[in-house]
């Protein structure tokens, strides 16, 4: 895989686990990965927002991918991490994941597109499926996950 550079190149992803599934997050969007910490609940926020945390003096919202993807609610363990995503300056957001596995490099031709007309709601949060060895990794469309269409209502 490392030798493959026929097309537009490769991207690095951080592989996280959520339930039984593995997800890849483009490393370019990741600002930081922090351990689980106390989350302050925010009343009347979207259901998948767990609340806000204090990251070095800044207040950041934290969302649960499990709730957003319709899985069981998070079970906080020693391995639970908050991945800090920065899509634009001054607007970071945390994402709760069960565990962070590794950093991988996937070339663009190892990525299969997802069927966009799929009825599965999760499909719109994915940018593709990456093949890494024998494993399949769902690559997250981070902007789609973080920016909620419903929010502007």
């Amino acid at each position, binding site marked *: 895989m490392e030798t493959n550079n026929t097309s537009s190149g490769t991207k690095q992803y951080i592989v996280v686990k959520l339930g039984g599934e593995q997800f890849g997050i483009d490393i370019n969007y990741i600002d930081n990965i922090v351990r689980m910490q106390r989350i302050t609940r925010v009343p009347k926020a979207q259901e998948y927002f767990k609340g806000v945390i204090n990251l070095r003096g800044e207040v950041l919202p934290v969302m649960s991918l499990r709730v957003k993807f319709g899985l069981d609610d998070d079970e906080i363990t020693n391995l639970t991490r908050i991945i800090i995503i920065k899509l634009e300056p001054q607007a970071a957001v945390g994402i709760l994941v069960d565990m962070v596995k590794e950093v991988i490099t996937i070339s663009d031709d190892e990525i299969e597109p997802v069927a966009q007309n799929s009825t599965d709601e999760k499909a719109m949060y994915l940018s593709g499926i990456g093949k890494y060895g024998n494993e399949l990794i769902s690559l997250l469309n981070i902007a789609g996950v973080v*920016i909620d269409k419903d929010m502007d209502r």
Partner: protein
Amino acid sequence: MDVSQYLEIFIEETKEHLQALNEHILILEKEADNIDTINEIFRAAHSLKGMAGTMGFMRMQRLTHDMENVFSEIRNGNMIVTDNLIDVLFKGIDALESYLSNIQETASEGTEDNDEIIEELNEILKSGTGKDSDDKKLMQEEEPHKEKDESGIKEKYKELVYASHEIHAIEAARQSGMSAYAITVYINEKCMLKSARAFLIFKAAEEHGEIIKSNPDSQDIENEEFDDNFSIVLLTKSKMEDVKKSIGNVSEVTEVYIGDVEIDEQHSDKKPEPAKEAVEAVSDLSTKNKQEEKNQPKKQAAAKPVVNRSVRVDIEKLDILMNLVSELIIAKNGLVSIGAHGSEGRKNDSFNEQIEYLESITTNLHESVMKVRMVPIESVVNRFPRMIRDLAKKLNKKMELYMSGEDTELDRTVIDEIGDPLMHLLRNAADHGIESGEVRVKKGKPEQGTILLDAYQDGNNVVIEVKDDGAGIDVEKVKNKALSKGVITPEQAETMAENEIVDLLFRPSFSTAEVVSDISGRGVGLDVVKSKIEALGGDIEARSVLGEGSNFIIRLPLTLAIIQALMVEIGKEKYAIPLGSIQTIEDVDYNDIKYVQSKEVINLRGSVIPLVRLEEVLDVEPLEEKNDSLTVVIVSKGDKQAGMVVDNLIGQQEIVIKPLGKYINNSKMIGGATILGDGEVALILDVNAMV
């Protein structure tokens, strides 16, 4: 040499003078023979002209000059103030303002000559006094030329001594068809910024060619180390007259002498063409025999940076800040020394002492810094009287704006943003609120409409009210419109209170102009006003009595960043309630809760106060054990009150307000978050949204 260092001062002062002009001309309109006002206007116009001239803004200077002529005739009693005159003067001021904003953005005044206004001014001057006044007068005044003193050698360039490389350069230039002129320029002795002036002269000369030498050298000129004259040598292809003319056009230049450079015999009798343009006795002949090298003034970067925004700070406030910072250092040193010496027991005591000391310093420091950021609201509202006057003319209605509390101070960021919403409300009041004179008379109101702009401090808030005695808001019409637009259902319409209906005006769906003129003519962009004010952390409320007028009340937080708050516990969660909105804290017995319209209320010293169960509103998991009585925090917003039921009081604390971050839905009830001493995040309740 560079005038840009004076630009900021120039802009600040010009703004002040323009404001003074605006205000006083408004007074003049009403009291045509108020001598003090006329003098004040004259003074402001005169300073404006001088400053504009010094900075080299010729168009601005020309316009002010002509305005000043008019003022001077008024002052001398040769002219009467007419409506037309005032209109033209205001036009002139508007033009000056647009010059100023050009200058602010690009450091240049732009190219608009505003000849029309100048024409009108001269027209007025002619018809008002029978005298002709035009730009010739300007020229004369600026450069009062008549020779009266011919003693001494004025053509100082003849005394220039050339170094060999300069001679070389001149010869080379001549061979390539250029001419070398030696020029001596005299500047008005009273000129304030000689170096700035000299810079403009250099610039004018450089438009024609290259300056290879100056005496005194450019460094000295920049430091204003010269008398009223200096000489330069210019290599150019332009004609001598052209060069002379363009230098002569720089204001406050009294004399320009120009001649060909004579290298071999500098004092030969080859006739130069001295351009004796003006006079002003030359005092002494400064020594001119400094040997110098080829010197060229530094080129200025073409695009000057836009002037920074600035706040004028009272020096006293800065002194206080300085003092506090030194105290802070002392407190820090105190802590350091406690760490180093002393037994455990004593350590603890003095440690606590120092912490308290530190606390009082940081509080004071915060206050002082906030004060530095505070600007009187005056700087925003003082342009409104003029606006209302113009609107009154345009709409052909009689109205007057009365303002009070202009000295109320607000944070700079708020001040910058509040202008537009206020203008919007005032426009609405003038346009739609105040009726035409006839209608008013018919209704038995005074023909002249009144608009009130009132600002005052109320706890931790600043309140700005925009009131008018016009037609008011027709609630029925608003309701019908809302029904027809589908904003509310008929059932809702039945039960809605009057003020709830008025609040509909702030809905975005009411914002298009046609809708508005259909209903009561109210609500142009009120949703924009509201969102702007909410972005500043404030809120707006409308009250109206049909036929008697309406009142828009804006409430803004005094400070944006740091506030005093009461920390409370609701369930197991901690929340902060801004202290500014808290009135009292009461212990209420369960039996004292009454029901009005099936809502919980308490009767507190005669006033009925609705209760807000925060744990329900905020979906907090309730505690299993309940207290024997309710702890109720009474908060107020204007004259409305509400009791917030909390489980526990933690105490008062100074908190830093942080935004919740993007993407998360921010309920109106949450005003932000703050980070507590232990790193935990607590949310700040915006009780204004709950009252």
